[in-house]
């Protein structure tokens, strides 16, 4: 293996997205679901920044900035929904959230 190329960063980004998808599919705990979503967004951020670096353009970096903003607000809303769900069902497992009514 010689110098680090963008391909290495892309491979890492694919791995992170795959691990995030695995957490999304395997875990039943909604807390882990939210954390896996964060992992996937992180993988996408790595890919965007690698492309931005290769293309010598700041657009990808600024997109990473906006993705961080969206991810932060998504976590805030998701955790608030989780707390609201927990109030009603005393559980954070997605299996227990199978009904639309209380």
């Amino acid at each position, binding site marked *: 293996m010689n110098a680090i190329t963008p391909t290495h960063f892309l491979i890492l980004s694919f*791995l992170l997205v795959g691990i995030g998808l695995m957490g999304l599919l395997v875990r039943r705990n909604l807390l882990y679901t939210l954390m896996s979503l964060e992992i996937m967004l992180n993988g996408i951020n790595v890919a965007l920044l690698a492309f931005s670096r290769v293309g010598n353009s*700041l657009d990808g970096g600024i997109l990473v900035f906006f993705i961080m903003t969206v991810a932060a607000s998504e976590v*805030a809303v998701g955790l608030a*929904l989780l707390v609201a769900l927990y109030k009603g069902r005393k559980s954070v497992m997605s299996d227990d959230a199978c009904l639309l009514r209380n």
Partner: protein
Amino acid sequence: MNFVDLLFLFFATLACGGALAMVFARHPVSGAMFMIVSLVGVAALFVLLEAFFLAILQVLVYAGAVMVLFLFIIMLLDVGPDGSKVDLSKWKPGFIGVLLSVLLVAVLLFLLIGDGGTPASNTASWPTPSDARETGDFPTLEFSPEVSFFGYGLMTKYMLPLQVSGFMLLAAMVGVIIISKAPKTNKGDS
């Protein structure tokens, strides 16, 4: 293999290993801790890509604010480790999930490395980055590790997205407050 390659390998292992450990962690608190390890690894990779501002932002926003919020909610709800008994009804979807994600990574890696030669001939009709840049109203934003370039880009080319994201943060904040208050108002209505 020089020093930078070793650094890349180390932090890539940290990011992927932390994420894997998070997925398979028993207790949510340890899962959040592994997630912090993964996020710090990704921040170090941002440093390797010379995006110092984004690395700092990653540590401050993700490892600082978001994970503190996660830990706060975990401790507020007082969720313990999942009592994950290994029975067949739980194993089967888990196995399928692992299989699907491994398949996704395999397909992506195949497209990137395995068949790398052929798609290059088809990309002739794609707009090159220089074409795309010339069509915009704004001059090209060169990549730079300096924060001032970020600020310039945000204040000129990305002014509208910046304001929209600020409004989205406000909407998220108001939404969280309303969601947190919902049961009481429902009781009052009915």
